């Protein structure tokens, strides 16, 4: 018994819950370099190395690593087009980068020692990095909306077109626009917290399960669950950002053909004025 439990048997045993954010390993004035930063660097180096190795000797008939990479890129491309149509192909690099980075980071959080030793902490289990990604995505899709629709983009928040049908409808449209504006801000928050909560919660669950079951191998089914959740969350983050892009570039204006006789179409009725099928 002394060999198995040199410090005496205690249940539950001592286990180290992963910290909520990265711990600083280097501090220069107010700026700290945390272990999450360091692990993020490892992820970036890994992805860049795979990309460089796969494209170093390109062949028309791919094999090996190039084959796998092409399969991956083609799959992401097909997925983006199935979600947003050919117009959305423009956002494939951003979508793919987010997806691959988050996927590798999420899967790192399952690996033993990451989150346990001092210099390793999964990047997506630190909400600062998630928030940075959410802010970058937010600024990018707002910019894209203004680039495509010019100032017509702001019409979804400041919509006064309802006033021509009376003050009541106008007030409702303005209110709906304000709710839209607030939901834009909440998108950043929910993107951040969803990813952080899932990854950190998974890490804590793995540690607690391994601790409570005493034998670490018994927690293996939960590792499988976490691998699946990591994939789903990476897909969801990237997919939601892609959906925000697709929503941002779609116009809320009426179609030009309808605009010619807008006065007559004041009361929309699908039976009297059948829509053109090109929607």
């Amino acid at each position, binding site marked *: 018994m002394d060999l198995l439990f040199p410090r005496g048997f205690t249940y539950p045993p001592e286990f180290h819950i992963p910290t909520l954010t990265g711990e600083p390993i280097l501090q220069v004035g107010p700026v700290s370099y945390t272990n999450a930063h360091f692990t993020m660097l490892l992820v970036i180096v890994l992805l860049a190395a795979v990309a460089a190795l796969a494209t170093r000797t390109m062949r028309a008939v791919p094999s090996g690593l190039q084959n796998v990479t092409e399969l991956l890129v083609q799959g992401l491309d097909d997925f983006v087009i199935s979600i947003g149509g050919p117009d959305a192909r423009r956002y494939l690099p951003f979508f793919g980068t987010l997806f691959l980075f988050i996927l590798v980071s999420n899967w790192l959080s399952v690996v033993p020692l990451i989150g346990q030793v001092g210099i390793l902490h999964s990047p997506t289990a630190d909400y600062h990095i998630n928030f940075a990604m959410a802010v970058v995505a937010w600024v990018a899709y707002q910019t894209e909306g203004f680039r495509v629709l010019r100032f017509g983009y702001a019409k979804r928040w400041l919509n006064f077109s309802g006033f021509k049908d009376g003050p009541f409808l106008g007030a409702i449209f303005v209110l709906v626009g304000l709710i839209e504006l607030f939901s834009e801000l909440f998108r950043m928050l929910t993107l951040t*917290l969803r990813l952080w*909560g*899932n990854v950190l*919660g998974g890490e804590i669950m793995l540690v607690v399960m391994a601790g409570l079951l005493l034998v670490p191998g018994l927690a293996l089914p939960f590792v499988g669950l976490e691998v699946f959740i990591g994939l*789903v*969350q990476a897909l*969801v983050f990237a*997919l*939601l950002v892609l959906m925000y892009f697709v929503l941002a570039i779609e116009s809320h204006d009426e179609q030009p053909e309808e605009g010619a006789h807008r006065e007559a179409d004041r009361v929309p009725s699908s039976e009297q004025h059948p829509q053109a099928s090109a929607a």
Partner: protein
Amino acid sequence: MEFAGLAAGIAVGFGVLGPGIGIGILTAKSSEAIGRNPDATGAIRTNMILGAALAEGLGILSFVLGILLWTRIG
């Protein structure tokens, strides 16, 4: 702060109820939809995962609240 642990447990427990029911209904309905129209499996699955993630986000909010309370214990 002696009730922080209790508060964290209650917050997470009740907060996860709603998303749990929601994801259950979502999965049941999309399974039905796939059964009725197996050709649309891809689109239904994508929408299902998206909806499940949105519903789960609410549960995660309560989990984050629980973590914030849990750090007050002690």
